């Protein structure tokens, strides 16, 4: 009897402590920083070794494929050149329109590259550890992107390392919209490296293949960054929302380098004297 009461009390204490510590922002205070400083250098060394061995394999043993790949790249380059000219035109017209409407620039060109040095030990959570931290100017809440699109958000920062919550994590949320239809919703982490596009109204005609971009309304991700493409749409007979699945453009299995968007701090308004 005493043992059962003891176990119940222990469980209750455990749950209370968990709900107190569930506020993640306290995690990288002193003990957490020591832990991360102990593990991260080994993770970095291990990741670097893996990359080194893999690069040797790729560069020296796969030379046969290089010529073939080169042809493909040449074709892709030609295509990109055409696109580039078209994009320059768009950029110029965009610049003119922005000036006309007196829009503020929403994203700075300041980005910081970082290397992924470790992945989450649990299949239940999707986070990565990167080799840039507070000393490099990284702060909690900064957006993490790759050239293909949005990767995640910085959730914890220590002196030289940071933890990034990927957009495929269950706890992640990104305010987004469908590029052509402008239907708005929230991108949440789903299953099998896919995302759910939630709270999209039924009235919007969303089709498979439509591109989803960040809306910029969450104040974290700059507007217009690619998130993924619509891979499934279910319109239930009742209800106000439709179920949309989005496949991210970023291959999270092969995520090795990322860019951290270093947006400048917004100016604080000084009270008039």
């Amino acid at each position, binding site marked *: 009897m005493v043992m059962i009461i003891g176990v119940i009390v222990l469980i209750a204490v455990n749950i209370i402590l*968990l709900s107190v510590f569930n506020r993640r922002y306290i995690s990288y205070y002193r003990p957490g920083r020591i*832990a991360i400083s102990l593990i991260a250098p080994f993770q970095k060394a*291990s990741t670097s070794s893996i990359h080194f061995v893999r690069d040797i394999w790729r560069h020296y043993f796969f030379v046969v494929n290089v010529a073939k790949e080169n042809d493909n790249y040449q074709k892709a380059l030609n295509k990109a050149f055409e696109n580039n000219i078209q994009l320059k035109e768009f950029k110029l017209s965009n610049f003119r329109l922005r000036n006309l409407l007196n829009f503020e620039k929403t994203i700075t060109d300041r980005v910081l590259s970082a290397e992924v040095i470790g992945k989450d*030990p*649990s*299949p*239940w959570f*999707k986070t990565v550890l990167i080799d840039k931290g507070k000393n490099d100017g990284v702060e909690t809440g900064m957006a993490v992107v790759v050239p293909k699109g949005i990767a995640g958000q910085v959730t914890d920062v220590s002196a030289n390392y940071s933890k990034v919550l990927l957009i495929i994590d*269950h706890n992640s949320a990104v305010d987004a919209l469908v590029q052509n239809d402008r239907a708005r919703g929230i991108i949440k982490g789903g*299953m099998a490296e896919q995302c759910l596009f939630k709270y999209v109204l039924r009235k919007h005609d969303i089709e498979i293949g439509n591109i989803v971009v960040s809306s910029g309304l969450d104040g974290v991700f700059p507007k217009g960054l690619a998130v993924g493409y619509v891979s499934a749409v279910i319109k239930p007979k009742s209800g106000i929302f439709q179920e949309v699945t989005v496949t991210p453009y970023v291959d999270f299995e092969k995520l090795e380098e990322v860019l951290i968007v270093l947006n400048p701090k917004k100016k604080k308004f000084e009270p008039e004297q």
Partner: protein
Amino acid sequence: MTYCLHILICLSLIIIQTTVMPYIPLFERFYDLLTPFIIYLSIFRSVRESIVIVFIFGFFMDIVSGGPLGLYLTAYVWLFIGVRWAITFLHVGDSLLLPFVVAAGVLMENLIFVGISAMFEQSPRIFETMVSTIVVQVLWALFTGPLFLMFFSYSHRQWDRWFKEILAKKN
């Protein structure tokens, strides 16, 4: 010196789990490598020797993971308590039972994860994915768990022997 070995093993397991295994598609849904080590400590080592390691590495895992802080600590502590309780009436040192003990440990850890996630997360996880992940992990544990226990036991014996040899040479 035993603590040094435990720390060395745990650090190696965390590094393998976070840097090497994600690059091997076969181990995409492999179980937490520290689980068999916690089971090893519970069965074969003393409480005094084990509890410090359970707390330290539970905390370390919480730091490197994206789950709520205290999740791994909770899982390891209850796993340790559960196995210590089980060995009071089960002869788990028997090699035939070891695969089932590791599999049960992995199942217990996953159930704790799912329970805590359900308590603190706003939107529910997809049931089918959860079940398939747990089944795959338990199956992995059933077949590979005893190998880990044997490796830990062997490392410990070798470490002790090596340490005794060094002491004998000094004397």
